């Protein structure tokens, strides 16, 4: 097996050699199984965590040393004992019967070289250690020492239910230190604006609260407190683009709309407007809607990107250079005049990719559109000329998701090569590479303060990365299937994630703990979105439903004291039914995208599938 230069990696791999008689592996395993089953109830759940990693490592060892028949019979005998949520992995494993099969499979190689993390209480650990060291041929102890990392905590052993909530990822759970770094989850301060009383007033901008002479009405939506939120990152922690005039106009519009926003809650559910893509023939792979809900883009399996205007205002492209020189640049409506009326249409098709388009994202200023595709490139399109501007090549493998930062300029992409990359529109190479996942990165999202990036992966973990230095600051395990949707709450404190197991999990970013589980969907959840003020969480799934959950209730009364953080003892209440505010079925359209307009109307999109 070709091993790269790291010395500790090669040491680990070379230790994957003959460790005892292959025919006795079954006996070792069944001996351990017997011991665990006879142990005390309170310890049994924790020690049962050992079964799966041991099983896999022993099997891989047999395969690596080319004991095919022993490997096969070992697999046959014990694969049924494993937990149900590992079934997919076991299926992959059953196809690995020869040493050569292991070479090409990066995920399996990563599994072998990284340590599977188990969190066990001290008492259970002592029990296990004593038992394994008693036996003469302690092969299992060797394996435990080399391939498993046992994170010991002092306290009560966890119950099966608690353990089941947290396990499931390819690398076990997260070590305590992995979730200890300080995360600035607060929001950045918005510059203060004065909302004009009516349109004819000149808008006065007040940055840093210095009042102008006119004293127009101050807006009440922005924060007026001068003291820094201790959980918010410093304003200049990462360089962000300055606000242009058009951005300021946008913000004023935003605030005006926000003033007219519907306050949602269990008594006042949002109306849902569903955009169905007809005649897409299962080709619709990605959807995005602009923040002001004026345009909708669809990425398709035929490698086209199609942009529609949702409002009556049609899409126009800018005039050619010859025509532009003819217009009067000083006129008031110059922004209208540069648009070419002849090109007005509701739909624009963008050609350029050479593979299905898996992710699309509008820039916050609506000038640019990103799309990422199976051909390994991320393309930047201009929405003023409707042409492709740049192709960012970095991933050489399918790119599964991309997103613009909430402030524009930066964007993140994640793909099959198991890394997520941070780019800026004016650099042809990525600025940051976030490596650490064991399998494809399937979903990437920016935190509202643009300082952190959450990535969900096919290895069933979610990692939170710091944009400033590329470090992984949080690892969240608990999903039992690849993650396909992520949503940050508007206040930046919480993260909601959805995966193929049909559950939505809620995480407290500051403490690094799971705080809620929403059961109800029966199929993969591809869309998650919080309402504008964070009161409602909407989830859309392949089972053709949109469900609304009460976010306020889910996040109140959190037990996050030091004990919970230290031991990871979480007690999730079984309140999915209470939190569910509504289930809305579509006829047979899986929901691919959700978007709350600025007034809290919920827009949903999906492609009609006739099955």
């Amino acid at each position, binding site marked *: 097996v070709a091993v790269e230069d790291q010395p500790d990696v090669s040491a680990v791999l070379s230790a994957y050699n003959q460790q005892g008689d292959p025919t006795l592996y079954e006996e070792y395993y069944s001996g351990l199984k017997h011991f665990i089953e006879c142990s005390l109830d309170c310890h049994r759940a924790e020690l049962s965590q050992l079964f799966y990693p041991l099983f896999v490592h022993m099997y891989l060892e047999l395969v690596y040393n080319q004991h095919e028949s022993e490997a096969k019979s070992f697999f046959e005998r014990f694969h049924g004992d494993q937990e149900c949520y590992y079934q997919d992995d076991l299926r992959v494993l059953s196809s690995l019967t020869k040493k050569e099969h292991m070479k090409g499979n990066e995920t399996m190689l990563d599994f072998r070289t990284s340590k599977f993390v188990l969190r066990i209480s001290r008492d259970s650990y002592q029990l296990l250690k004593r038992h394994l060291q008693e036996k003469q041929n302690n092969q299992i102890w060797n394996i435990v020492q080399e391939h498993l990392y046992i994170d010991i905590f002092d306290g009560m052993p966890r119950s099966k239910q608690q353990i089941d909530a947290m396990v499931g990822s390819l690398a076990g759970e997260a070590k305590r230190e992995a979730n200890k770094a300080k995360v600035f989850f607060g929001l950045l301060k918005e510059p203060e604006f004065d909302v004009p009383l009516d349109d004819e007033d000149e808008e006065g901008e007040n940055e840093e609260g210095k009042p102008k002479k006119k004293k127009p009405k101050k807006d009440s939506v922005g924060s007026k407190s001068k003291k820094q939120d201790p959980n918010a990152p410093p304003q200049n922690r990462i360089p962000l683009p*300055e606000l242009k005039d058009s951005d300021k106009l946008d913000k004023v519009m935003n605030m005006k709309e926000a003033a007219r926003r519907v306050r949602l809650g269990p008594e006042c559910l949002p109306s849902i407007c569903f955009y169905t893509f007809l005649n897409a023939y299962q080709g619709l792979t990605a959807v995005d809607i602009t923040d002001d809900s004026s345009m909708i883009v669809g990425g398709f399996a035929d490698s086209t990107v199609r942009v529609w205007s949702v409002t009556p205002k049609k899409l126009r492209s800018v005039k050619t250079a010859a025509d532009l020189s003819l217009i009067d640049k000083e006129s008031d409506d110059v922004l209208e005049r540069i648009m070419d009326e002849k090109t007005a249409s509701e739909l624009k098709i963008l050609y350029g990719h050479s593979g299905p388009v898996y992710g699309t994202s509008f820039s916050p200023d609506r000038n640019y559109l990103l799309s990422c595709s199976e051909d390994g490139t991320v393309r930047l399109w201009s929405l003023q000329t409707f042409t492709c501007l740049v192709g960012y090549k970095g991933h050489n493998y399918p790119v599964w998701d991309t997103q613009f930062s909430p402030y524009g300029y930066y964007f993140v992409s994640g793909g099959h090569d198991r890394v997520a990359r941070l780019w800026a529109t004016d650099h*042809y190479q990525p600025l940051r590479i976030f490596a650490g996942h064991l399998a494809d990165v399937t979903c990437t999202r920016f935190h509202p303060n643009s300082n952190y990036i959450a990535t969900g992966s096919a290895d069933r973990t979610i990692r939170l990365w710091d944009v400033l230095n590329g470090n992984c600051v949080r690892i969240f395990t608990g999903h039992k299937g690849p993650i396909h949707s992520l949503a940050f709450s508007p206040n930046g404190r919480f993260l909601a994630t959805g995966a193929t197991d049909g559950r939505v999990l809620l995480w407290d970013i500051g403490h690094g703990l799971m705080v809620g589980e929403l059961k109800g969907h029966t199929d993969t959840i591809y869309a998650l979105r919080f309402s504008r003020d964070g009161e409602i969480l909407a989830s859309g799934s392949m089972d053709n439903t949109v469900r609304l959950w009460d976010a306020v209730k889910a996040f109140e009364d959190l037990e996050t004291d030091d004990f919970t953080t230290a031991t990871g003892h979480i007690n999730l209440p079984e309140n999915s039914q209470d939190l569910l505010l509504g289930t809305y079925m579509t006829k047979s359209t899986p929901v691919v995208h959700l978007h709350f307009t600025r007034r809290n109307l919920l827009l949903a999109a999906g492609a009609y599938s006739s099955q």
Partner: protein
Amino acid sequence: YVTTILEDAKIYSSHAKKSNVDADDVRLAIQCRTDQSFTSPPPRDFLLDIARQKNQTPLPLIKPYSGPRLPPDRYCLTAPNYRLKSLQKKVSSSAGRITVPRLSVGAVSSRPSTPTLGTPSAQTVSVSAKVGTPVSLGGQRFTVQIPSSQAAVKTATPTTPTVQNVLINPSLIGPKNILITTNMVSSQSTASEPNPLKRKHEEDDDYDNL
């Protein structure tokens, strides 16, 4: 595939000056081929290494007031010396099939049912409105329903190749963008052969263009 592998194996065995092709040669040939055609993503330690390198450089400061922020021109696609031909008004009247897929959002359109190519006959079967020879379509979009005509013509084949008339049902013309399949078929075959091969090809075409 097998011939390629065996040829490669022959080359390797002759290079090693063996008289027969060995199992080892075949194994080597297979390995070289798969290394060429299938690559796997870089290994984890390599990724961690380059990530560490990349992440050490601080984030670059952003110059204010710099217009559209794009990489240097040679990395951009802003100067293509080609242009894509638009698909409109391109319907040719010669024998050939054109498939122009379109998607409509919000509008209800019906997909035409897979036409069964009936017997080529000189008669035209009228639906609701007869439209004269639709051979040249001037840039409009239509739904086409070719009704199945299953009258089996037992007797002699028509002497000249006939063009199956395409009938347009105006009641099905929706707002703008509807899938069209214009199908000019000229065939001389007997009635019993409804040309299943051509039909399959047309469906492939649809699939490709979607």
